[in-house]
């Protein structure tokens, strides 16, 4: 492709940006909603056409038309009647009908939240196009210095602005839908959820006399098409800008696709956490009845947290902490020496031991529940946290050894060998040389075992009967009994149980990849 062709292409994409801007302006000017309404209506009996009375009446009607300008239409009906005496009387009726139209601009001026959002979206599209022009002008200047494909910062800003506009459309849709659609059931019940918003919506549609429900429905029906078109136009704008920024459409599409995938991924993964978060702060009525509910709580109930603190949750959290810390301690005390031997020593039966460790993974605690509860009764560890500590430590051995061994292998043994020749014992070499160097891997394993024990549920349900000894995972099930589930409390408690663990896991996430690599793949 020659330079000239490239420049022509660039013109074309800039044109697309402006075309989309133009289209959006046109779309915003088109009526989203239109209806005809009678604003003036009066009958005059005994008024012959062109009589003095008639002219007076017509003037009155024309006065009523004035504030509405050209949208108003005067309708005149003349009826002749013959009464019982045989006289003919004339009745004149004047009606002023006004055609109201609402378009994007009037929506922006309406003062509705959705109007503000529309304004911001449109504003950012305009700004984006402006930035595109700015970069185009300076691009002309530096063209000769073969800097044609310099990725312009202004174009990047334009892309981001355009993307923001695109993403604002669903937000706009949500709010418009909230005002004009979700409020209908409340209007029907004469029990408006958000009276000021409903009033604003009615003012916007000018429906003092018209039935608000049909007006709202009419609008939301027409607005759907409007939204899709606006979305498509903004998308064109974004495509044009990305093309200008990236140079190649295939690369641009690929990048776009990648980010779309990432966003979808994050939304899907965060969705249940979002649900947990908002439900934990709802009122019980809102949590259990959808009619009284918007996406976010109408009122954030912080007292849910204090309520659950009075229902044993601190004790559960403490139990979980003790249990997990104990299990981690024991798992590490047993696991570090084993991993050390596996990483640094040669002996007969090494493979057999590895096989044994892998075999232990085959049995989840659930499968062995009957055996475990029997054993615990024999050891008198039934219904104790100590018993849980041992079980969790044992079932986490395999993963701990796997991770630790990987860490140890990835560290060169030269220092230890030197120390051993100098007369240090193997214990000394482990404690003084290897452990400090392997600290990140050890912390990773530590946290990993801690989290696994914290999240463990099945054994604890079976082994622990006393309420005060329950860990949090079992403790929160008290909020979901058979006949009634207190969702708001359940999720408030779940939030407390989840947050610390997620934070811990985020800390080790980076090391976990390297740990898995060295432990699983290389070894």
């Amino acid at each position, binding site marked *: 492709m020659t330079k000239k062709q490239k420049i022509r292409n660039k013109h074309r994409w800039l044109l697309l940006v402006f075309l989309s801007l133009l289209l959006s302006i046109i779309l915003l000017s088109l009526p989203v909603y239109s209806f005809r309404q009678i604003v003036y209506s009066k009958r005059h009996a005994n008024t012959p056409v062109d009589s003095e009375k008639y002219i007076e009446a017509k003037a009155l009607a024309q006065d009523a038309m004035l504030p509405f300008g050209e949208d108003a239409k005067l309708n005149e009906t003349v009826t002749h009647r013959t009464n019982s005496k045989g006289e003919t009387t004339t009745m004149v009726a004047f009606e002023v009908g006004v055609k109201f139209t609402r378009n994007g601009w009037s929506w922006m001026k309406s003062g509705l939240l959705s109007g503000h959002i529309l304004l911001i979206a449109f504003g950012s599209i305009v700004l984006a196009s402006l930035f595109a022009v700015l970069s185009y002008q300076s691009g002309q200047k530096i063209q000769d210095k073969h800097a044609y494909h310099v990725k312009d910062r202004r174009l990047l800003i334009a892309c981001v602005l355009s993307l923001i506009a695109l993403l604002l459309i*669903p937000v706009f849709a949500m709010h418009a839908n909230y005002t004009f659609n979700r409020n209908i059931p409340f209007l029907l019940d004469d029990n408006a959820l958000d009276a000021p918003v409903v009033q604003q919506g009615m003012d916007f549609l000018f429906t003092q006399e018209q039935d608000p429900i049909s007006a709202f429905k009419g609008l*939301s029906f027409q607005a759907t098409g409007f939204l899709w078109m606006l979305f498509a136009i903004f998308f064109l704008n974004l495509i044009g800008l990305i093309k200008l920024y990236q140079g190649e459409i295939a690369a641009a599409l690929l990048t776009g696709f990648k980010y779309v995938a990432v966003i979808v991924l994050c939304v899907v993964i965060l969705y249940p956490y979002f*649900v947990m978060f908002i439900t934990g702060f709802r009122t019980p009525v809102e949590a259990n009845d959808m009619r009284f509910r918007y996406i976010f709580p109408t009122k954030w109930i912080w007292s849910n947290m204090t309520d659950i603190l009075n229902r044993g949750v601190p004790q559960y959290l403490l139990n979980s902490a003790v249990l997990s810390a104990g299990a981690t301690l024991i798992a590490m005390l047993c696991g570090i020496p084993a991993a050390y031997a596996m990483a640094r020593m040669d002996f007969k039966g090494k493979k057999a031991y590895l096989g044994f460790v892998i075999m232990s993974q085959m049995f989840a605690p659930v499968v062995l*529940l009957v055996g475990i509860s029997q054993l615990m009764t024999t050891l008198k560890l039934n219904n104790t946290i100590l018993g849980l500590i041992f079980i969790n430590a044992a079932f986490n051995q395999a993963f701990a050894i796997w991770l630790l061994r990987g860490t140890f292998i990835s560290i060169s043994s030269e220092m230890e060998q030197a120390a051993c020749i100098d007369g240090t014992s193997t214990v000394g070499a482990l404690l003084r040389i290897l452990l400090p160097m392997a600290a990140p891997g050890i912390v990773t394993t530590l946290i990993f075992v801690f989290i696994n024990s914290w999240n463990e549920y099945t054994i604890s349900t*079976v082994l622990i009967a006393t309420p005060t000894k329950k860990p949090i995972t079992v403790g929160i099930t008290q909020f979901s009994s058979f006949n009634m589930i207190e969702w708001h409390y359940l999720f408030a408690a779940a939030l407390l*149980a989840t947050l610390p663990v997620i934070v811990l896991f985020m800390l080790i*996430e980076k090391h976990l990849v390297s740990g898995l690599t060295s432990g699983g793949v290389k070894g």
Partner: protein
Amino acid sequence: MNSVFVRHKWEPYLWLLPSILLMLIFIVFPIAIVFKLSFSHISPAGVVGDFVGFGNFQKAINDPAFKQVMINTFIWVVSVVGFSTLIGFGVAVLLNQKLFGRKIVRSIVVFPWATSLVIQASIWNYIIKYEYGNLNNVLLNLGIIKNAINWRVSYQIEFMWECWVGIFVTIPFVTFCILAGLQSIDSAYYEAATVDGAGAWQKFRHVTFPLVQPSLTVSTILNIIYVFNSFPIIYTITKGAPANKTDTMITLLYMRAFYDRQKGPATALSVIGFVVLCIVSGIYMVSSLRKEEH
């Protein structure tokens, strides 16, 4: 040699001793007890009686729910392991690219792994409720649907939701295993492939895939084991209702052992499950090891 100087022959065993003891007492003993119980008569009160041969196994297999439960278990393991591996692979490839905010995305992806399964299952249980579930609420508020949809019309659909939750919570593990494999690939391979004129797909097929195969094998085997043994999801969402129609072997085992007081058949189920698991993961391991050799 990457080893340290050892003074006595028996020293390594001393190092292993604590770990062996721990696992011996708390894993091997229960295994032995389960095996022993599966061949003995157990009264509903839990008193262990005489050796009954395969009586318990017969009872377990003749259980009216057994057939449905085996089918469920098969669907559960295959769909959860299969889909989570597919999606996890995709996510790992995505996260291995240069992305703005990759670190944040990686921390977000790890969330389901860090959350307790009971809590996850409770949240999803709430999301898909018909009358007041959050999914209906969000879709209604966004104007995507006009009337609430019943997301759990039949037990088959409910079971599909359980599978989805299973997939959802398994994805991070697969992603991180494969990501570990992907990051250990030397970029020199790709450069060589580019010199040879390989396209993106060919690079993936002939460089990426063979090199992450070991990680894939490890993650798949561990996944088969974990997913087979998974308990809280089904227990929280449906408890196997209606009439064991959504149970897998593990939840059935739990119900039989601790609700119906039939510990004999329950232990027999444990043994059956273990044998099946051994065979399946053994076959998978052998076949994928062979593939690697080729």
